[in-house]
C-alpha cells in the first residue's frame, strides 16, 4: 500500500518533468528552424548536457566546462553557505532574545517587518562597495537574506506553543532553561526549517547576483562573461541549468535535514502514510 502511494506520486512528478522536457525540445526545434542563432535563444537539451561532459578545454589554462563550472560553483556556493550559516545563527539568536524579552521584541519586530519589504538584492552593489571585497559581500548579502525569514519563522514557532503546554511545564516545576530545551525549541523546529527552506535558495541567488557585479571567479562572473561572448554560449546554459538544479536541491536538502534531526516529523509522516 505504502509503496504504491509513493510510486504513484513519483510517477506524477516524473510525467510533469518529462512533459517540460518535451515542451522545451519542441520550442527548441521551432527556434532552431526560425532563428539565425538558436544557441542564444533556446538550444536543444542534449548539446547543453553534452557540452557539460565535453573533455575539450575551453580556457587557456585547460579547464573544461565541467571543471570551470565546478570550480566557480565551489567559490560562489561556499560563500553562500558561510553567509547562510551566519544568518541562520543570528536569526535564531534574535528569535530567542525576542521571545525571552518583550522589550527586545518590541524594538526588533517592526524592523524585521520592514526589512522584508525592502529589496535587499537591490542593495547588493552598495554592499559590495562598502565591504570592497566580493567574497565578504556575498557572505553579507546571503546572511541578511537568511537572517529575517529564519528569525520571523522561529519566533512564530515559539509563539505557536499552546497555553496548556506552558501550564503543564509549569506544574512540573520546569525552570526557564528546561522550558526552552524541552518544549519550546523542539516545537519551533518545523517553523525554523520553514524559514531555512525559504532562505536557502535566496542565499544562493544572492551570491550569484553579487558575482555578476564584478569580475573574478564565480558562477555569476562566468555567466556574464559567457553572455558577453568571451567564451562559448554553452557555458551560460550549463550554469543556468546548474544553478537551477542547485537552487531546487538546496530547498529539498533542508527538508531532508529536517526529517533527519526531528524524530517527531518522522513519526507524523509514518502515521499519515498508515492512514492512507
Amino acid at each position, binding site marked *: 500500500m505504502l509503496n504504491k502511494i509513493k510510486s504513484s506520486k513519483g510517477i506524477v512528478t516524473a510525467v510533469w518533468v518529462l512533459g517540460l522536457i518535451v515542451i522545451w525540445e519542441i520550442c527548441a526545434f521551432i527556434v532552431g528552424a526560425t532563428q539565425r542563432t538558436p544557441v542564444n535563444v533556446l538550444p536543444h537539451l542534449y548539446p547543453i548536457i553534452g557540452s557539460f561532459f565535453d573533455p575539450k578545454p575551453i580556457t587557456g589554462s585547460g579547464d573544461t566546462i565541467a571543471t570551470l563550472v565546478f570550480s566557480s560553483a565551489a567559490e560562489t556556493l561556499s560563500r553562500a553557505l558561510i553567509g547562510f550559516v551566519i544568518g541562520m545563527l543570528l536569526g535564531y539568536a534574535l528569535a530567542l532574545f525576542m521571545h525571552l524579552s518583550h522589550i527586545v521584541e518590541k524594538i526588533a519586530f517592526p524592523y524585521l517587518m520592514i526589512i522584508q519589504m525592502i*529589496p535587499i538584492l537591490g542593495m547588493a552593489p552598495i554592499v559590495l562597495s562598502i565591504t570592497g571585497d566580493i567574497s565578504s559581500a556575498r557572505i553579507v548579502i546571503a546572511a541578511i537574506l537568511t537572517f529575517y525569514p529564519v528569525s520571523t519563522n522561529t519566533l512564530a514557532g515559539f509563539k505557536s506553543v499552546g497555553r496548556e503546554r506552558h501550564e503543564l511545564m509549569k506544574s512540573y516545576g520546569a525552570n526557564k532553561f528546561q522550558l526552552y530545551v524541552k518544549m519550546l525549541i523542539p516545537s519551533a523546529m518545523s517553523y525554523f526549517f520553514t524559514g531555512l527552506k525559504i532562505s536557502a535558495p535566496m542565499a544562493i541567488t544572492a551570491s550569484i547576483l553579487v558575482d555578476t557585479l564584478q569580475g573574478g571567479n564565480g558562477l555569476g562572473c562566468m555567466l556574464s562573461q559567457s553572455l558577453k561572448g568571451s567564451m562559448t554560449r554553452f557555458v551560460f546554459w550549463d550554469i543556468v541549468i546548474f*544553478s537551477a538544479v542547485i537552487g531546487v536541491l538546496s530547498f529539498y536538502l533542508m527538508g531532508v535535514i529536517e526529517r533527519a534531526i526531528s524524530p517527531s516529523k518522522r513519526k507524523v509522516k509514518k502515521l499519515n502514510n498508515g492512514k492512507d
Partner: protein
Amino acid sequence: MKSKAIKNVLTTVGLPVLFGAIIFVLWQTKVLHALFGTDEIILPLPTRIGSIISDNFTVMIPQITSTLIVALGGLVLGSILGYLIGVAGAVFKKWGMGGLTIVSAFNAIPLVALAPVINNWTRNLSGVVDIRSTVAKIITVTIFCTASMSVNAYRGLTEVKPFSEDLFASYGSSKLRMFFKLRLPNSLPYVFTALRVSVPSCVIGAVVSEYFAEQVIGVGRQIRENIVKGQFPTAWAYIAVACAMGILMYVILLIVESIVLKNRRAR
C-alpha cells in the same frame, strides 16, 4: 486599565522609534562609518541622501514609473497565472499536485539565471528596445510571483471546512456551484497571504531584472549605474526610493486586506 493600554501603545511605538532615532544619530554623527570602516562618500549622511531625493525628484519620476510598471505588471500577471494553476491543481487533484510541486521548484531557481534567458527570448519580439525590454522584465517578475500564489490558492480552494462541503452536497449542489459559492470565497484570505509574500518580491524582481535588461532605465538600474560611476550618494537616494516603494506597496496591501476581509474578522 486605560493607562495600561496607553503604556502598551507607547512602548510598542516608542521603543522602535527610539531605536531608529539612535541609529539615525549614530549615522549622522559618523559613528556608523567608524563601525563599518567606510567613509562619507560610500555611505553618505542621511540628510545628504534626503536632499538629493528632494532635489532630483523630477528626474527620478520616469525611473520610478518604469520600475512600478514592471513590478505591478508582473505581480498582476503572476498572481492571475498562479491562481489559475491553483484552480487547475484543485480540480485535477492527482495531476495538479505534481504540477504544483514543479511550480514551487521553479521558485527555487535563481532569478539571476532566469533574467538573461528571458532577455534572449524577447529579442525578436519587437524592434523597439523599450517594448521588448519591458516585456522581458515583466515576464521575469511574473515567474517570480507565480509560485507563492499557486500554492496558497490551492490550499485556499481545498482546505474548506468538511461540514460545509457536506452541507453543499446535501443540498445537491453541482460541483461548479460549490466551486463558486464555497471554494472561491474560502480562498480569499489565502490570496492575501500569498500577496504578502509576492508584493515585496515583485519589487525585488523588478529591481534585479533591470540589472540585466537592455533598456537602461529603472530604479534598480540607476543604483547600479551610479555605483559604477562612483556617485554613491545618488545610488543611495535610489536605494531609499526602492525601499520606500516596497514599504508603500506593502502598506497599501495591508489596507486593502483589512477592507476586503473586514466581514470575516468580525465573525
